[in-house]
């Protein structure tokens, strides 16, 4: 924020960075080879819905667009859920080897919001992974930072996350993805749909 913004008490809403999301498919291959975590095929976009009909219409349009794929039989219908914090998650489900299709779907949601001027409402996107012993891992993309971080929930109720796996994944993917360096920003997304 610039000097005059501080002086005049105004914040420019932060526009999301979208391009880095496309690094995900190759990173998923790398992750699978190095750690055994495979994509479950589901991924989600999380945003803060704006009140009013304009936003609701945009949201409806984008889910209908994604569901057109489902009617053709190439993908499953999207799920829209609202978490207890008032954030909306649009979950897209694909086959586990269709990482490109999944990222394209997620990007469709992003660009629908950005094109209509609601880019600042985007919070994060999450792509789910699982390993042979059924441990869960989410790669979370922070739109405002343009960075990724791993989130490995162990027990939702006790709010335990597996920091060892998270740090390990950070090391594995640091060449493929822009990893968030500020660990304070690796905020937990307990109960994230699709994870």
């Amino acid at each position, binding site marked *: *924020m610039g000097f005059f913004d501080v002086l005049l008490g*105004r*914040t420019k809403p932060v*526009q999301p960075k979208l391009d880095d999301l496309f690094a995900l498919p190759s990173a998923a291959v790398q992750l699978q080879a190095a750690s055994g975590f495979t994509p479950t095929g589901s991924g989600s976009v999380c945003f803060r819905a704006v*009140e009013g009909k304009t936003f609701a219409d945009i949201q409806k349009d984008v889910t209908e667009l994604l569901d057109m794929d489902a009617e053709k039989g190439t993908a499953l219908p999207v799920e829209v859920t609202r978490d207890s914090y008032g954030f909306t998650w649009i979950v897209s489900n694909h086959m586990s080897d269709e990482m490109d299709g999944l990222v394209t779907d997620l990007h469709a949601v992003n660009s629908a919001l950005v094109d209509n001027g609601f880019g600042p*409402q985007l919070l994060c996107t999450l792509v789910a992974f699982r390993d042979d012993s059924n441990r869960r891992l989410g790669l979370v993309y922070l739109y405002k930072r343009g960075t990724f971080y791993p989130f490995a929930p162990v027990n939702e109720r006790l*709010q335990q996350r597996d920091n060892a796996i998270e740090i390990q994944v950070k090391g594995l993917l640091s060449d493929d993805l822009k990893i968030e360096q500020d660990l304070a*920003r690796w905020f937990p997304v307990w109960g994230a749909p699709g994870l």
Partner: protein
Amino acid sequence: MATRTRYAPDKGLTVRMTATMFLLGLVFVAFVALIIGVMSAAHVSAAGIVFVALIFGFGSAWVSLFYSDKIALAAAGAREVTPQQAPQLHAIVDRLCALADMDKPRVAIAPTRMMNAFATGRNSKNSVLCVTEGILDQNQPNHLTNEELEGVLAHELSHVAHKDVQVMTIASLLAIVAGLLVRFAFYSELFGGGRRGGNNNQAALLIPLIMLVSAVVYAISFLLIRSLSRYRELAADRSGALLTGQPSALASALVKVSNSMQRIPTQDLRKQEPLNAFYFAPALKLNGQGLGNIFSTHPSLEKRLDQLAKIQRQLGEVAPDNR
């Protein structure tokens, strides 16, 4: 690709805030000119008073800037909480900070039944966001929903983003120095008067003059600071509502918090009054509309609700292409 935005700055608010700060600056320059005049008159006792007032003024501003978080937390009797102790609260703050791309402040809870919240600290790294137990209490008849609480927290985070503690401290500096000058000049009249000889008429005139001008400067800058504070509140409401995209949730939180304020026993209110400027809604209300408003740190509820209604309409419109 042209990025569309529906978050155009509020020009009216910008103009009013700029005008207020310009006037404050003007008073400041006039005041400094007077001090230099006094200094060049080279009367030791008068110059001494000005010098001491400046040192005290800057000293207290520096202390209040650097220890604002600790002072406010201690005054409210608040304790910091970890994510384990207050997972809900931390989760809301986490999400808001990620949306706004800002550093997460520390989070604290103050043990009072009153519904309120404040944020303080000189920069984003040293900020603390404090809420009262009353505002978190889900058993109260008029408790805030998660979305309303989020609106309140977004308002407070906007204060942090706008660096309001810094801006208000610098703005208050003039008033602090002027207030001290009045007091010092008064004491020096009381205790120093006897020592002046017959050929010292200049000093006898100079010190009351300093006192008078300082008093006027103090009064003017006090009013300007209060109006600046009201504009900063409106600006924080605005940024908070745009951040969450839910102006009406913030509006209903405002109504609930203001209503609850009127039911609280006076004892508690008087104790909370020194913290007023930091709070989400003022703990002590001045009676009467009109004139009372120019002394208050917060804009009237109607003004704040009006602005939020305007933002609500803007968010519903088709995005204008104004970057």
